[in-house]
């Protein structure tokens, strides 16, 4: 690894080599062994910004936010369906068997999606967004 490459990586990824791209770490370790004092200066300079970035703490989650979000999760429709069956006089065992069959089916009430979004959901999420929204510079 050239010294320039070492400095470029420190500038991009910071002063902790364990956070550098995995493919570059072995070469980085050799560069550090070859010129330890220089490498330490480069990493310390990058590490100064890392320490500053660490002072920007993540936001505290307000009280019951997790519960409110969990409450929006869909429940198994089969459970509701089974409860409807019981008052009609069907046995609890039969209702439970029906519910298990529906849950095992896994797609009860699921909406149909396009093959593209199912095949690569990350690409679909990226394509879902208009690139024109990047009002600032882009790579």
């Amino acid at each position: 690894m050239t010294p320039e490459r070492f400095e470029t990586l420190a500038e991009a990824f910071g002063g902790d080599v364990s956070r550098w791209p995995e493919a570059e770490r072995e070469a980085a370790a050799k560069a550090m062994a070859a010129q330890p004092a220089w490498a330490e200066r480069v990493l310390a300079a990058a590490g100064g910004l890392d320490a500053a970035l660490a002072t920007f703490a993540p936001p505290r989650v307000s009280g019951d936010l997790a519960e409110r979000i969990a409450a929006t999760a869909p429940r198994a429709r089969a459970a509701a369906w089974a409860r409807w069956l019981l008052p009609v006089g069907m046995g609890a065992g039969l209702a439970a068997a029906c519910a298990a069959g529906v849950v095992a089916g896994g797609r009860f009430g699921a909406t149909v999606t396009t093959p593209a979004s199912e095949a690569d959901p990350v690409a679909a999420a990226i394509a879902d967004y208009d690139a024109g929204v990047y009002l600032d510079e882009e790579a």
Partner: protein
Amino acid sequence: MGDPDEELLSRVAGGDPAASRALVARKLPRLMSLAGRMLGDPAEAEDVAQEAFLRIWKQAPKWRPGEARFDTWLHRVALNLCYDRLRRRRELAFAEPPDRPDEGPGPDRGLEASDTGRRVSAALQALPDRQREAIVLCHYQELGNIEAAAVMGVSVEALESLLGRGRRALRAALGDLKEA
């Protein structure tokens, strides 16, 4: 290595409330970390987190194991929601220019516990969106370069360029700080 979220996601798709609570516990802090640093506003970060989970509940029954990492998808969805808000802010600012200098998106609630934290927050918000995104994904969310590039839809070389430019800009903005 398999996707660590797949098993939980499968149970969420089956309507298991315990699994939903577990997924919220697992992902909510990460979503708040991402959105909080992209937007610099805790209230907006909570809105993004709530909307992201609505998308998760919708996606869970359709998720096909092995084709993508769920965490990668979730980061992209959350970033899209953040960009919606950033665009809305700019549209509002254009339509109604402030009478006085804009001092930032909102009150502090644990985001900037120190003066340095406030300065870092302001410096991050002043970066071009894509540079901030790269730094948030790699430094704060601790995604590897390959995964971060995948989330951003760019090459690893482009990611590295964004990181370098972003960090140089931050160092210039924070140069008087002892740590920087």
